[in-house]
Each structure stands twice: as C-alpha cells, then as structure tokens.
C-alpha cells in the first residue's frame, strides 16, 4: 500500500538549530518537513508529490501563510524539504517579518505540513491521485515581541 508520511517538522534558524523562539527581524526561519515515501509509491510511473507549508495564527484561527513545493521524488524514500532561506547571506534570510507574520496581537504561530502524492498512470493521461497523503500535527513557535518604532 503506497504511503507518503511526514515523519517530523522542524523550524530551523540560521544556526541550523530546530528552534522555537525567533527574533522577527534578524533570525532566519526555515520551515522543514522530514518525509518518508514507500518504495511502492516511488515505483509508480512519474510519481510526484505536492507539499504545502502553512503558518497558522491561533489568535485568528487562520492560515496566514501558505507556500507550495511540487516535485518528483528526487532523493529516495527518506528526504527533507525546506522553505525559506536560512543559509545566508543574513540580508537574504527569510525572517518572520519576511514571512509576512504580524506578531502585534499574537506572537505564537504554528507550522503545519500537508503532503499528497500523485502519478501519471499512462502517457498523456494526466495526474491521478494516490491514496498517499499526510497532514502533520502543528509545530508551535514564538516570535519575540520586538517592534519597529
């Protein structure tokens, strides 16, 4: 039975640490998913996946950021994917401010991942859904209450 699982989520800063507290202006915030695809999923013709990285604001009970990654499977069964520059230079970091977060009313946010697999059964047939998907639990993180004057 094919499957695509989210083994874990990480919120990674510029030091490569799986952090939960971020300076909104200077810390990088990379949203990272650790994924596991079954061997029979990878064996399907043109097997691919679509991943959505969401940032959730519990104060508004609303998804405030949604970013996508769609790709074929390039790294075998166990791999990670990440959104947001945390490798530098510092001026290019994807900070909480760069993500577009608003931490005035609420400074705690959740990162949630959604992944689903698809394939092309025969040439020209278009994508077909596979019963292989996952929705992660929320990984909570906090943005320091620092504001620009």
């Amino acid at each position, binding site marked *: 039975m094919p499957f695509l699982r989210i083994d874990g989520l990480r919120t990674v800063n510029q030091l490569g640490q799986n952090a939960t507290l971020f300076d909104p202006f200077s810390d990088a915030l*990379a949203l990272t998913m*650790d994924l*596991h695809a079954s*061997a029979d999923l990878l064996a399907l013709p043109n097997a*691919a996946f*679509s991943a959505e990285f969401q940032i959730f604001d519990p104060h508004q009970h609303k998804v405030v950021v949604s*970013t*996508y*990654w*769609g*790709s074929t499977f*390039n*790294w*075998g*069964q*166990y*791999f*990670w*994917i*990440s*959104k*947001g*520059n945390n*490798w530098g230079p510092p001026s*290019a970091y*994807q900070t909480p401010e760069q993500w577009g977060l608003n931490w005035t009313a609420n400074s705690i946010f959740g990162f949630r991942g959604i992944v689903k697999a*698809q394939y092309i059964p025969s040439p020209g047939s*278009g*994508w*077909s*859904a596979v019963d292989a998907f996952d929705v992660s639990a929320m990984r909570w993180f906090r943005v320091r209450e620092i504001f620009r004057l």
Partner: protein
Amino acid sequence: MNKKKQKRTKTTAEKQRKPISVKQLPPLKSDDIPSRGGKRAVKED
C-alpha cells in the same frame, strides 16, 4: 428459447442523477520562496 430482452426503464432517481465530471489534478506548483531539499540519513527499506 427465444426470450426477448426487455429494456429496463430508468427510475426517477436515475433520471435525476447528474453525470459525474472528472476534474484533472492541477499541475504541480511551487512558488518562488527559496527552497532546499535533500536525502535524509536514514537506512532505506
């Protein structure tokens, strides 16, 4: 045995049933937020 096949008339429910439209999955999408990926150091099956 020369039985003539009788055509079954459709029930009202069947007549009212709308045809199913199959929507194709959209192409894979990615946006321009910088991204990276790689193999994880886990023993494969």
